[in-house]
């Protein structure tokens, strides 16, 4: 990695524990790593190893019990809920494993949710939106409800939603987990293309070794710990 590149995300001694009845489960155990601007990092590991939890914490969707996470130089753990929400809207994008599209909204409405939430009137969405839906090949499905879309189309809508605000860091939680190989490859291509075009940092949780091999770095998790960092 180029030493001149700046750190975009820094995670230090992050611990996340859940209390289930009398047992304390440690989902993330002292995770420490750094991710550089424009990097593509894959997080791998067996089910229940804490990958998604770590991703949610890094994306500011959940809070750790201890440790610190710095994104773009700001400690997101010390931010209040409102500041963190605004930070998420402005700089971070999230692609959920199971799409998480709002069923009552059409594809277009789902994609435009982040623009409404961030209230950035100086931002030109229209052109960006058109390019995005053209790139993702969903222009003809914009007025359909999620239930009327295939799994691949739903995932593309979810990707468009994550990218509409031009986030600096994109978090993807098994974005191809529910797709067949052809669709998975297509979605991955799209993600990498938009990453290059928008100069984004991509952090992706995946079980797919073939996809992970395309990453700049792979973080391997086991029992909540980052066991290995490898290419």
């Amino acid at each position, binding site marked *: 990695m180029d030493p001149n590149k700046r750190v975009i995300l820094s995670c230090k001694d992050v611990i996340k524990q859940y209390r289930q009845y009398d047992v304390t489960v440690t989902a993330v155990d002292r995770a420490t790593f750094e991710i550089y601007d424009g990097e593509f990092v894959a997080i791998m590991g067996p089910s229940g190893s804490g990958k998604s939890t770590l991703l949610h914490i890094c994306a500011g969707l959940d809070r750790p019990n201890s440790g610190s996470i710095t994104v773009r130089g700001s400690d997101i753990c010390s931010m209040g809920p409102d500041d963190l*929400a605004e930070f998420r*809207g402005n700089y971070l994008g999230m692609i959920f494993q199971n799409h998480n599209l709002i069923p009552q909204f059409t594809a277009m409405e789902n994609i435009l949710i982040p623009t409404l939430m961030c209230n950035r009137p100086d931002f030109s969405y229209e052109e960006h939106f058109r390019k995005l839906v053209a790139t993702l090949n969903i222009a003809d499905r914009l007025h359909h409800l999620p239930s009327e879309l295939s799994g691949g189309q739903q995932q593309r809508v979810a990707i468009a939603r994550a990218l509409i605000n031009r986030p600096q860091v994109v978090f993807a939680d098994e974005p191809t987990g529910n797709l067949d190989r052809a669709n998975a490859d297509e979605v991955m291509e799209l993600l990498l293309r938009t990453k290059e075009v928008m100069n984004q940092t991509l952090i992706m949780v995946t079980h797919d070794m073939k996809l992970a091999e395309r990453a700049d770095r792979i973080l391997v998790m086991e029992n909540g710990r980052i066991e290995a960092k490898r290419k």
Partner: protein
Amino acid sequence: MGYRKPYYNEDHKLVRYGIGDAVADAATFIRRFFAWRNIRHAFAGVIKGARGYAVFYAALILIQSLFWTVWLICDSRIAAMRAEADSGCDWNVTVEGLTHDEWVECYNGSLMFADEQKPSERGYVSYTVSSYYNAQSEVRYRVRARLISDSPAEASKFTARYGFEGEAVTVTVSERTEVYYRVAACRKNAVLTTVGLGVLSAVILLLLFLIRTNQFKFTYGIYMAFGAGFEKLLETAAWEMFAVSVLTFVPAALFSVLLFLLVLRGGGGSLAAGSLLSLPRIAGALCWTLSIVFVSVIPAVRILSASTPVKLLSAADNSNYVSSPRVSFRIFGKSFPFHYECFSFLRLRKYYIAVLSAAVLFTTLFSSGLLIADMRRTEQEFELPQFTVTATEGIDVSDIEVLDDIEGLKYVRWSTPVSATACASHAVLTRSQARSISGDTVNAQQDGMVASNGFRYIELSEELLYEVNVRGAWDVAEGDLSSVLSDADTAAVSLYVNNRQRLNIHAGDTLILAALRAQGAPIDYTRADKRWILSRQIADCYFVFYEVTVGAVVDTGSTGDEFSVVVSPELFSKLTGRSGEITSLELVFEPGATHAQIDEARDTVSAQLGGYEGFALGNTGRDFELAADSSQSPVAGIIYGSVAVMLVSPLVWMFAQIHFGYKRRKEMYILSAMGAADRDLSSLFLWSGALLSALACVFTLVFTSLLRRLIFFFINEYLPSLGFGRGIRYDYVFPWWGLLVCVAVSSAAAVISTYLPFRSWVRDRDLRRRAEAGADGE
């Protein structure tokens, strides 16, 4: 708003948050909040999605109706009192007791010249002068003036400006001026009621909002994941509620007019129209509603925004309510669907507790409203005096008898109270008789008995007995009061102190009354502790004891913190060492007495009793209260209001349950796929409804009883013990029909709210099946 903590900007420079940033943030917030787009979206959302907002439409119609109804009733009372004052007297101030010389001096000094001026300059519109004879048969002059304003300050100015002074000159203001105070009091009550209802309304809306945010956790979770914070969520929710408030404004006003006309027993249409079209009232209603909306929306949104998106997204199926999966697993080996639903009930207990609390709260408020309505009815029926007369010199009974000729007078109430402490007397009671006042008693000289001096003696004369027996001045609960006069060893007792029954005595019981014979060691009577004084008296004084039989148990009206012992004049003299002196009177009028009669009565009483030393005549304004009450039905108003509050209960319940039922669709599909029949699934919903209904009934009964007891104690006993209240004692009633309504409403709401989601599920399933069949056919 910006980041309040220091942060690094795009150029990696540390940015600190200052006052300028705060001002800029506030300006941004205001600009964003009042963006036309927000308002447009809110209106479009609540109109297009009217079904989803139905409960908010209903709640806001109800909330706004409460405001309008309270103020329409207030306006009508004020109008009735003003009309009564207008019809009753054409003057504001009465100056009485002027001698001829004093009157001439006033007239020649200033009044004569003022007559030439304009009313606005001289301060009065007109005046009349009349002469009358006072108690000493001397000619006196009375001046009555209609002032340019009904304000009390104007009356003071008038008397000062025209020099109405003299040794025996009295100045009284008429009902026209009195009405000023009453209008202010009426408005104050309306404001307090509005504030109380505002708090209640905010609770209702908050509950509905919490239910809504709970049901739409997934959607809110997505919003928050993509940048929505407190401000964004607030502006969406607040504008939506604003839109609903605006859309329901006119229907609510019309609904309240309907309610108002019911309360008014017909009539009042023009008054209602006048109030509804008054701009300040419309502005007040809007402000009130919007305040409630904000007060209720802000905490709900704050709670929501404090949560993390992951928590909201993972709780989309209400699984946060599923507090113990292990409990759910216990269904294995148990019958389906009853046991399944019982465990579901346990599994979802937090949700059910929230729903039950809402239901029970509003049905309890309804039941309490019925109690308050009943208390109001008692107040209306209670015979409060129009005039109170006090004098430092004892009033002669023959003078009181003259008052009987006053037209419209129902009776004169008087008594001759002498405190037992003042005459160093006490009563000896059994412990059983004094059980409720054991804290105020000391051990008596007689074994096993206790002594109390917390009572007063009243002398029963023939005249007083006549007032009681013939004209109903007191209530006789037990026995025959006339036995007190016919039998020297008989007394009557009142049981209540501050509306609380303190003595356990019945007609036929024996009571020992002690009269001081000789004082031993000196006692400090200035001490406030009556028990200490009594214990010293028992230890150091000599008493003569009179054993009397309780001939009657009576209710002598307000007795302060002492009960009464009514005895014959002979016994009164022996016990107190003095004869009974009447120093206070209460004149009670027939409800239909006219103003002219009341006005004339005032003159008669002044003429007849004005000569007594320390004479003072007070007007309680009872005629105004009766006039205001007769113009409408406050009891009916309270009952309608209570019913309206109770209607919130099924509203909240059904809203929550129906949404919750939809959430359980997936569960139903899974159970159906596992082989559960429609019958079983419908049973699930019905069991849920039945269990909920049963619990609601039980909790409603318990909480209703508790709250009613509390309200009753507060109004009937606690306030009188602090010196508030007018000596009215209320009956504690528990209307079975009100409880039946509560139970019926709870049951109906539970059954309907569980049946509707089931029907919806069946419809949804059938549609899917048909769609699948159609697809197969193709």
